[in-house]
């Protein structure tokens, strides 16, 4: 199974050059049944990444461009009166897909945002008193522009907490960009590697990965360090702790191990916690990552 994951990473790597770490993290997020938030400037490959992911995993894919006038019904679907049958029929919205790309999520109004986040948390939607299960696996990739850009509604802390990971792709390196340009002429079809049912199986195996007592201690002391110190305006929530735990398991799994080591925790830690720690009002804050300072504080070999 692990080879397939490596194949996935390789296949996506063909499309997005020089971003293997981010691709791996995105896969880890997927394997731990989490949702992904991509934050970057326009044109950095956010959409490409999400498209590639769904293509490689052979999942139904829908893309929604979030705008300020988008309403929840546009996303969830709506009951429409059918004059022929005199009945209301439910027309499913784009959310009824296995992979939903919510592009520029912070351009939509809070009302629409919260509708999406509710669906993410519960894996089902309720419309006119009737609830509909979302397909499985259900994976939301949201992208957002950095907050200093105009026309954005920042996601509140309570809602951003629901994203398991937040990734930034960043500018590619010179070599990667050169490779990108040179390979432009050849059209690369992304080959599918996994099926949806295989993905569910993988997610199941991830939850079997052993997390030993010392690693649990390490995770807890990291989390507690954020709570004990005044440096962090938003301490890590228990949901964050769970997210770290599951992502570490997935990370070990991707690296072909059946037990978690502290390196796994460190690898996923910034992606999982940075957006939770920072909150939204500190976008202009210093360039040093808060999550990195947490990692520096805690000795992984202490337990």
């Amino acid at each position, binding site marked *: 199974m692990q080879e397939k994951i490596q194949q996935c990473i390789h296949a996506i790597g063909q499309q997005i050059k020089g971003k293997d770490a981010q691709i791996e993290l995105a896969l880890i997020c997927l394997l731990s049944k989490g949702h992904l938030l991509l934050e970057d400037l326009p044109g950095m490959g956010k959409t490409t990444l999400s498209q590639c992911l769904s293509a490689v995993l052979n999942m139904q894919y829908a893309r929604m461009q979030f705008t300020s006038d988008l309403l929840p019904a546009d996303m969830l679907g709506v009951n429409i009166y059918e004059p022929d049958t005199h009945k209301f029929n439910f027309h499913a919205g784009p959310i009824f897909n296995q992979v939903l790309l919510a592009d520029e999520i912070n351009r939509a109004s809070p009302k629409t945002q919260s509708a999406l986040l509710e669906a993410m948390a519960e894996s089902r939607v309720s419309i006119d008193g009737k609830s509909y299960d979302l397909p499985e696996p259900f994976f939301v990739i949201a992208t957002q522009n950095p907050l200093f850009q105009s026309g954005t509604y920042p996601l509140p802390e309570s809602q951003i907490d629901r994203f398991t990971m937040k990734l930034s792709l960043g500018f590619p390196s010179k070599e990667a960009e050169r490779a990108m340009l040179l390979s432009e002429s050849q059209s690369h079809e992304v080959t599918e590697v996994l099926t949806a049912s295989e993905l569910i199986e993988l997610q199941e195996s991830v939850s079997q990965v*052993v997390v*030993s007592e*010392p690693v649990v201690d390490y995770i807890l002391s990291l989390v507690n360090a954020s709570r004990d110190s005044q440096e962090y305006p938003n301490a890590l929530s228990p949901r964050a702790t769970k997210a770290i735990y599951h992502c570490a398991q997935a990370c070990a799994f991707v690296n072909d191990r059946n037990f978690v*080591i*502290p*390196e796994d925790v460190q690898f996923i830690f910034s992606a999982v916690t940075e957006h939770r720690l920072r909150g939204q009002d500190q976008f202009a804050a210093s360039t040093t990552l808060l999550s990195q300072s947490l*990692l*520096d504080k805690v000795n*992984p*070999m202490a337990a």
Partner: protein
Amino acid sequence: MGWVLVLCVCSFVITGYKAQKNSPPLKNSVLNLLAILCISIIIWLASDYGLLKSMINLLVVSCCLKILNLHHTGDYQMVASIQLFLIGCGLIFHQSLGYSIFYCCLIVMLFCALHAIKVRETNYKNYSKQTLLLVLQAVPIALVLFFVTPKLNPLWKMPVAKGSQTGLSEKMTPGDIANLAKSDELVFRAEFAGDLPKPQERYWRAIVLDEFDGKTWSISERAKNFPLPSEVQFQGKSLDYSVIAEPTSTNWLYSLDIPILIQGLSTQRIISTQQFQLQSRTPLHSKGLYVVKSFIEQPLNIYNGFENTSFYLQTPTTGNPKTVEYVLNNISPSMSTRQKIDQLNALFADDDFKYSLTPPLMQTNPIDQFLFDKKTGFCSHYASAMAYMLRIANVPARIVTGYQGGELQSNNVISVHQFDAHAWVEAWDKDLGWIRTDPTAIVAPNRVLAGLLSSLENRAEFRNESPFSLSLLQDYALLNNLRLLLAEIDHTWSQSILRYNQESQKSLLKKIFGDMSPRSFSYAIIGSFVVIGIFIALLFIPRQRENKKEEQKWLETVFSLLEKQGHRKENSETLQQFSQRISPSLNSTASKSLRYITKVYYQWHYSQKTHSEPFAAVKDKMKKQLSTLKAAIKK
């Protein structure tokens, strides 16, 4: 019991066979039946062996049977603890130096076995080394405990080991002492402060017998336990000596005539009786030391508790007609006591009389048969006949049993063995008091002058019962010297270790620390206990904590090793990151070993639940790698 030994050997053989062939264990029902059988035999024989020996045999049997049925670690530990207890029991019976060393070896072997079971180590070199180290650590503690712990009297008494054949008995049938004479067990040692008594004067009095039933001499009820009045004073030449008596089943002690007790036993009181004996209140179950002053020139006329010496004229009314006739014909009432004695002794000067350890049986009229028919006997035959004739001749007479002679070692020590047992006669004269006369000395003068061995015509007689007896070796000068040396070491052992009691403890502490009040003495003892306690606590408490965090210790070792080389681990670094960062700056062996350590540590530390390797194996690997790393870094 002999059959218990056989059972032991059988169970060892079976266990060995099982281990060799890996055969299935014995059925429980078989073992249970065997156990019931053994227990019933023990109960059957219990009355002969006494409580203590039966209980010990029971333990031995259960131990043997358990060995056949070992399954769990607990079983091994149980067997080992029973054996420790048995060794303790063994010390009740044997305390000599040889046995002490033997038991110490057994204990060390037991500890080795226990340790091997505990650490699951199969290489005997490894575990015996570790065990020896542990035992050596225990030695100073044991020494301090031995020398410093208050010597209290025991809170309970050990049951008596019944059936020990050692020692003289309170009844004498001619022939008894001959059996005793075949044993070369030590009876006592006497250490003289000044002069030694001459060989022919070494009559060690133990028991006085005064009642005769025609066959057996015994102690009459009237004669028992009359203490010597303390106002009696003795004069003349005296000898000072201390006696270390081996345990016996009687309460008769040994002394030369006439003994005055200078220092008694530490455990119980000694009585001086009117028959010039020393007697302890209860049988001596452990070695005991007492100091005596003997007035050897003092005639035994100082005190005779019985105004009526006619009591010593008691004879059976019937039997031995020839003897009676012989005495009445040869002795006239007008003769003096001394003359009568000489006259009767003259009978034994006849060449026909032989001294032998194995005289023929004399069932009816034994004295007649002995004097006029067989004419072969041991000291008890001669003494018995002599005393009987004296009584018929109207001379009050009695038999004294004890030991005669003894082997002179260097430094004025005489050791007396069971084969020195002897019996002689005392006759009463109004003026002279009790006169000692020893008819054996007439028949076999060497018996008195040079000991039993030289007086027997057939020396093989003495040997045939114990072919490996040490006294066989007397013929070879070198071996004899060796034997005497061993005896001397044993003497020192019993003098200094077995005699160690409250008094010697006090004097030892006094020697070391100077004078002490009882209060500071007790403080010192409490202090020493506290020190020992702290020492043990320091030894064991940190070890327990370390055991838990063995893995942490490995890490600390690695980090401190590398830190000495200037490689410091960043706080947030994991071991793997650290080793990857620094390995380019290490030599190849060191970096390889560091990588290996990292791998093993991660494997063990982070996947405990799924790990198949036992911790001991991981620990071993780790230790080896750590030392490799250390060596590689030092280069």
